[in-house]
């Protein structure tokens, strides 16, 4: 019943279910209720490490070398024991910098170098394509074997069937379509694919269940337990050899090498980096994955050796490939359902690997290879294109198709040359070349771009020469003479016995030389110079961890107006708008238009773009709109400074010194203000002194004259005494006014505030001065007929103002012809009183001066003495009083046309109706 169409249907139904799961998970992610945000899903999705190489290949390897399959899984177990130091840091750093792939990680670490990103991409693609070929081979083989059910016939050699009858081609095409559907549905700013991760977790579960089912069937269905299998195996000499390992240094060396290799592979394979770092939802999930993932590996390997031994015993003559035991053992026992389950498990292992690997590779190819090249070609005009997000997706889709195409090509041409497990190890050795620059980049600040480039290139070259080219040669692509005799016949250059190194297996041999070249190049070249500013900055971000997060990435600025359209071109306008709005909200702003054009905004935009097109391209794009200012020497020193504590301390010191400078400036200002006040006070006192001494001088002079000369005649004597009396009066008035003014200015004056009738005050003031006016024969006209001009004021103070203004006027008008006119009136809001005289008037430049203390009008030249009477304090005091009641006092005058002093006061609320004139 396992006809071809059943298998095909089952395959498509299974893939359909996976796609439905992915679609649902994406929907959930969009609505903010992530399906994959839990540690179990994370741990299961890490199971993408186990490909068909594990599912089918482990048994094959066990059949060939006994426990030799185990190191591939012990390595990752050990890596996860170190997760707290390595993986956790990688995830943190990758999240902080929106790293999209391992190429991006390396490029970003060494100063966002596009060249480095490109090199890593090339190594990853070249290194991983055989591995993809392996998956195609496994799926097409399993399909072919299953299709001949119930007979067990090994499939034809790859390449033996015509192209269009080759199931592997269709597998490749279907997987390409499926991957494109999964991986490039939309361009995510963080390059996370929740749906894909959910599907991968399900696939991991399926392949584990399938393998455990086979194991249980083989151990307890076909035999009476594990002990039975081992006992039977021990009895068969060819099989018994697999129960122990060759006890030689070389074998232990190989063993150790494989542990070491798989440890790095489980971290650095593009798909592992994708799942473990890029797709990680929350670094906390790593905690449980630390034991769950090793446990997963343990379980999937639990029955490998028993199944291998059982297979060897069941198919003793070697006609059945050990790589197919998992499938052929259930088939041989007509276990149709189990056989189908195993096939689906193998399909899971293959599709999971291919999907994640090609998505990871396509991201790298797009971001680190194609986009940088396209953006550099001016004729394409891409840099100016408005919306590039569609183009990005297009490039990725093509990248996926091309990668799978290459995988198929490799399968078709070289597929039979190697057992499955060897191909996997070639890939492992390729990605192990990333170890120095990645691990070194996380813990050593001294690495430079040149060092990384040199190390990677050297390691890659040695890997290609010692492992890849021989594999080509064995596949018949290349003449194999150079393997046996060395390049150009030079014996020392034999690729698998480089410089005469023998006694190692090819993988260990390759690793010894490639990592030596890699590490030597990386460290040696890095040490040629100190890291430049950009490298040092990235080094601080990667090595320093969270502490360095405050370091500025840009020293320039660009506003939302430049950055939003830029981001929109790659992410789509709406998505960019959303991201900027969220950023604005995080910064406590109302809208994205309030975002200041600062370093933080530029960094945000760059990180956002980095999520879509990789850090190196993002930097180049942002640089096109940012006007970067050169780094100051202090900032350079800051970044180069190794000890963060010193830096923190320095920052603190700078802060303090800044505060001190500020305080000093404030003090200096306050001091200047005090000195100014002091000078003013000094001037005031000097003026007061002068004003007091002047009457005193007269008093003393006349008193002495009278005292010293008793013979002065009576008229003279009485005149002198009159002067003394008037100067005394002047002196006491002056003293009173000075005290008054001091009280007013210091705010200690006492006020009795009440409703005051202004007209009444005017009348009273005029009355008190009637005698003086009469004495000088000056006419006083009162226009205070408006009753009830009520204001809120101190009656006595108001009287003081009125008397002052009237006596001032009287002082300046000519005797006999002098006229003083008082007017009163007002508007709805204020009461207005004016005192006009026909005196000499006041020049316009003096009209404000007269309100200063001790400054009297000087325009009174016709007065005999040239010196105005009075203290010079009356008007300042009057103005203080009026202003105290929120009024104004000023003078309107023209020389020769008399002066008119006016003051206004706010009308008391409630009497408008009486006096609305």
């Amino acid at each position, binding site marked *: 019943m396992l006809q071809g169409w059943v298998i095909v249907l089952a395959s498509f139904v299974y893939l359909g279910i996976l796609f439905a799961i992915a679609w649902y998970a994406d929907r959930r992610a969009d609505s903010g209720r992530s399906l994959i945000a839990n540690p179990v899903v994370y741990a299961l999705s890490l199971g993408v490490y186990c490909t068909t190489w594990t599912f089918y290949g482990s048994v094959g390897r066990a059949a060939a070398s006994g426990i030799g399959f185990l190191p591939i899984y012990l390595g990752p177990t050990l890596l996860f024991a170190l997760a707290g130091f390595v993986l956790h840091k990688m995830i943190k750093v990758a999240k902080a910098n929106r790293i999209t792939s391992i190429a991006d990680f390396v490029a970003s670490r060494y100063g966002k170098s596009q060249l480095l990103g490109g090199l890593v991409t090339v190594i990853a693609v070249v290194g991983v394509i055989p591995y993809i070929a392996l998956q195609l081979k496994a799926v097409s083989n399993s399909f072919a074997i299953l299709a001949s059910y119930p007979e067990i016939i090994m499939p034809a050699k790859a390449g033996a069937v015509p192209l269009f009858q080759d199931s592997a081609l269709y597998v490749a095409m279907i997987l390409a379509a499926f991957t494109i559907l999964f991986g490039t549905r939309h361009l995510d700013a963080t390059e996370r694919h929740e749906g894909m991760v959910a599907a991968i977790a399900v696939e991991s579960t399926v392949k584990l269940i399938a393998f455990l089912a086979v194991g249980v069937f083989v151990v307890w269905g076909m035999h009476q337990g594990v002990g039975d299998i081992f006992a039977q195996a021990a009895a068969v000499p060819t099989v018994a050899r697999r129960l122990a390992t060759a006890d030689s240094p070389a074998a232990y060396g190989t063993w150790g090498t494989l542990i070491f290799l798989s440890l790095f592979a489980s971290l650095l394979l593009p798909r592992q980096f994708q799942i473990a770092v890029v797709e990680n939802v929350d670094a906390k999930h790593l905690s449980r994955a630390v034991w769950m993932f090793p446990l997963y590996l343990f379980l999937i390997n639990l029955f490998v050796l028993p199944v291998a031994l059982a297979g060897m015993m069941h198919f003793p003559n070697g006609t059945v490939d050990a790589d197919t035991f998992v499938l052929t053992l259930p088939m041989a026992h007509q276990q149709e359902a189990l056989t189908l389950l195993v096939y689906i498990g193998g399909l899971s292992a293959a599709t999971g690997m291919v999907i994640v690997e090609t998505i990871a590779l396509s991201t790298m190819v797009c971001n680190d290879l194609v986009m940088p090249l396209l953006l550099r070609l001016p004729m394409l005009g891409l840099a100016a294109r408005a919306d590039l997000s569609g183009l990005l997706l297009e490039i990725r889709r093509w990248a996926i198709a091309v990668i799978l195409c290459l995988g198929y090509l490799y399968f078709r041409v070289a597929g039979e040359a190697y057992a499955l497990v060897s191909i996997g190890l070639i890939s492992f050795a390729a990605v192990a070349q990333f170890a120095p620059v990645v691990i070194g980049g996380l813990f050593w600040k001294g690495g430079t771009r040149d060092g990384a480039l040199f190390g990677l290139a050297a390691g890659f070259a040695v890997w290609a020469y010692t492992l890849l080219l021989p594999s080509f040669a064995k596949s018949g692509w290349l003449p194999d003479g150079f393997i046996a005799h060395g390049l150009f016949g030079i014996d020392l250059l034999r690729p698998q016995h480089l410089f005469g190194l023998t006694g190692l297996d090819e993988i260990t041999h390759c690793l010894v030389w490639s990592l030596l070249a890699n590490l030597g190049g990386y460290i040696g070249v890095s040490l040629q110079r100190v890291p430049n500013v950009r490298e040092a900055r990235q080094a601080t971000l990667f090595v320093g961890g969270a502490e360095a997060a405050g370091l500025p990435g840009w020293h320039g600025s660009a506003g939302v107006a430049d950055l939003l359209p830029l981001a929109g071109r790659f992410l789509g306008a709406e998505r960019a708008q959303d991201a900027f709005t969220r950023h604005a909200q995080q910064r406590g702003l109302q809208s994205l238009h309030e975002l200041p054009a600062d370093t933080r905004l530029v960094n945000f935009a760059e990180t956002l773009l980095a999520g879509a097109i990789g850090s190196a391209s993002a930097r180049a794009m942002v640089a096109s709109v940012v006007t970067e200012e050169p780094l100051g020497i202090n900032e350079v020193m800051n970044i180069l400074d190794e000890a963060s504590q010193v830096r923190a301390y320095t920052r603190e010191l700078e802060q303090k010194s800044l505060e001190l400078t500020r305080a000093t400036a404030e003090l200096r200002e306050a001091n200047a203000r005090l000195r100014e006040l002091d000078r003013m006070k000094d001037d005031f006192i*000097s003026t007061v*002194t*002068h*004003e007091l*001494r*002047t009457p*005193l*001088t*007269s*008093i*003393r*002079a*006349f008193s*002495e*004259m009278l005292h*010293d*000369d008793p013979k002065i005649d009576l008229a003279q004597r009485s005149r002198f005494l009159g*002067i003394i009396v008037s*100067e005394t009066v002047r002196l006491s008035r002056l003293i009173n006014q000075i005290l008054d003014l001091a009280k007013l200015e210091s705010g200690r004056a006492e006020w009795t505030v009440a409703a005051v009738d202004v007209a009444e005050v005017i009348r009273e003031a005029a009355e008190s001065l009637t005698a003086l006016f009469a004495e000088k024969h000056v006419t006083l006209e009162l226009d205070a007929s408006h009753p009830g001009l009520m204001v809120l004021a101190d009656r006595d103070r108001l009287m003081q103002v009125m008397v002052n203004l009237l006596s001032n006027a009287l002082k300046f008008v000519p005797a006999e012809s002098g006229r003083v006119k008082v007017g009163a009136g007002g508007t709805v809001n204020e009461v207005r009183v004016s005192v006009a005289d026909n005196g000499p008037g006041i020049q316009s430049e003096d009209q404000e001066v007269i309100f200063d203390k001790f400054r009297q009008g*000087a325009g009174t030249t016709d007065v005999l*003495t*040239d*010196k105005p009477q009075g203290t010079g304090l009356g008007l300042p005091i009057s103005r203080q009083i009026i202003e105290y009641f929120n009024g104004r006092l000023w003078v309107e005058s023209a020389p020769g046309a008399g002066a008119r002093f006016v003051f206004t006061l706010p009308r008391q609320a409630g009497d408008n109706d009486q006096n609305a004139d």
Partner: protein
Amino acid sequence: MSHRILIVDDEPNIVISLEYLMKKEGFQVVVATNGDAALEQASAFLPELILLDVMMPKKSGFEVCQALRANPALTGVKIIMLTAKGRETEVTKGLALGADAYITKPFSTKDLVLQIKSMLA
């Protein structure tokens, strides 16, 4: 022949007292109540001694003093400055501008007369 004295002050009562004191000593007295008048009177009257107030409107005693010293017709004239402010800096300034003595108000009439007499001797 009696000495000629020019009194310059803007305070009428002080002028009265000074005029009385000087006339009592038998000097010829001319009065000016501001700086410009002082310079005019000085040129016309050619006094031997000038009593000069510092704080006057328009032109201060310092300015007048400077102008007097710049007038070649008035070489040898004695200048006594009178001030009610009496700050150290003003005394120094007055003397630097060529005043012969500096007297602070209020002054002792006896001392003033004695000083004038000694300066004219």
